[in-house]
């Protein structure tokens, strides 16, 4: 029997509400607003209260997909990663660094955004990194 409440930050809007993701035996079972959270003080909006729900949706992508003969088909991580790296290398060599663009994200973490722009700038050699801050 494993009952946990994991303290985290809501992934919906920019308010930054502190909440607990409640789980029983490794499955999310609910969201509880954190009373001592600096912004929300134990309150949440309708999206926040239901933020655990999309996580375990059966629509989640569970395997990498690669387009073969026009269709996206499930492949191994090895194949997906090799394909991606090889194609990026080919395009950089043939068309130059600025032929590659990166769309970072206002939804993922700082660490992930940092790594993406680091790869864009130091790996590929382009400053074409943007995200949809404007939208």
């Amino acid at each position: 029997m494993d009952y946990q409440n994991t303290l985290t930050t809501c992934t919906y809007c920019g308010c930054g509400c502190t909440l607990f993701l409640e789980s029983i035996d490794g499955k999310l079972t609910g969201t509880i607003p954190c009373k001592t959270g600096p912004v929300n003080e134990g309150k949440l909006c309708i999206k926040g209260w239901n933020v655990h729900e999309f996580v375990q949706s059966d629509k989640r992508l569970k395997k990498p997909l690669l387009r073969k003969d026009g269709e996206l088909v499930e492949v191994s991580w090895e194949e997906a990663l090799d394909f991606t790296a090889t194609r990026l290398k080919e395009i950089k060599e043939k068309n130059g660094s600025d032929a590659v663009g990166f769309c970072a994200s206002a939804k993922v973490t700082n660490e992930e955004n940092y790594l993406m722009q680091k790869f864009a700038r130091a790996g590929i050699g382009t400053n074409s990194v943007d995200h949809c801050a404007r939208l």
Partner: protein
Amino acid sequence: MIDQVKQKINELLSAGSVKGVVALAHANSHVTPCLFQKDDDLSVLSLGDNKSDGDARYPLNKVLIKIARQYPDDAFGILVRGCDERGLYGLYRLKQLDPEKVVTIGISCPQSLAVQCECKKPWPDDMTAGEISDGVEQKQVQDAEGKDQSQRFTYWTDQFLKCVKCYGCRDICPMCFCHECSLECEDLVSKGDLPVDIPVFHLTRAMHMADRCIDCGLCDEACPSDIPLRVLYKKTAQIMNTEFGFTSGIDKNETSPLSLMGPSPEKPEK
């Protein structure tokens, strides 16, 4: 007080009389609802006081219902204040928890918290620690009723207009467990737009809670728009008392006058 609570939890867990104890813990510099099991570190135990008394209370009964639905054969301990214990009595009546499978560890509320809550009974019958504070007479309802009708109408309309329809009053409520919620019934409340139907949304909930609300105040604290929901529910509870002599959660073997209406609640499914 906390040492007596720790001792009781320790006894229950070591004796194996319960599978776990639903309580609060300090974690990540916050207070967290948690389940203590055998050999867990009890030094992190919290009674729900952060900056002031009882300001980090959580709906532990609701946590217990969730765990008990997954593990219906096990018994659990639970940390309770007066209001939580009233809630348990109601949940036994409504067949959401089995009294044979629940062991309470009761603590009283300090006078300051009792005053803030205007709590009539700020202690549980089954007390493990603390001293009994005085029950507090209800003034908020009286004050609200002191205004004339048009003032009252304007006041509540303005309050309900602020609603952002988070359903937090329902979602935090330890007495809300229905699989189908009347607030989501489109014959009663329309969907898709703000502000919510005034006053249908809030009064539907107030009616539904008439024989359930145990006056814990968690809905008030969860409302992003600071709507004084507790006053509203105190009022419905008052009507139940004057009309039927019923007060939710005062008697362990209570029956509700409203149980004459409609089918009796079903046993929880796993």
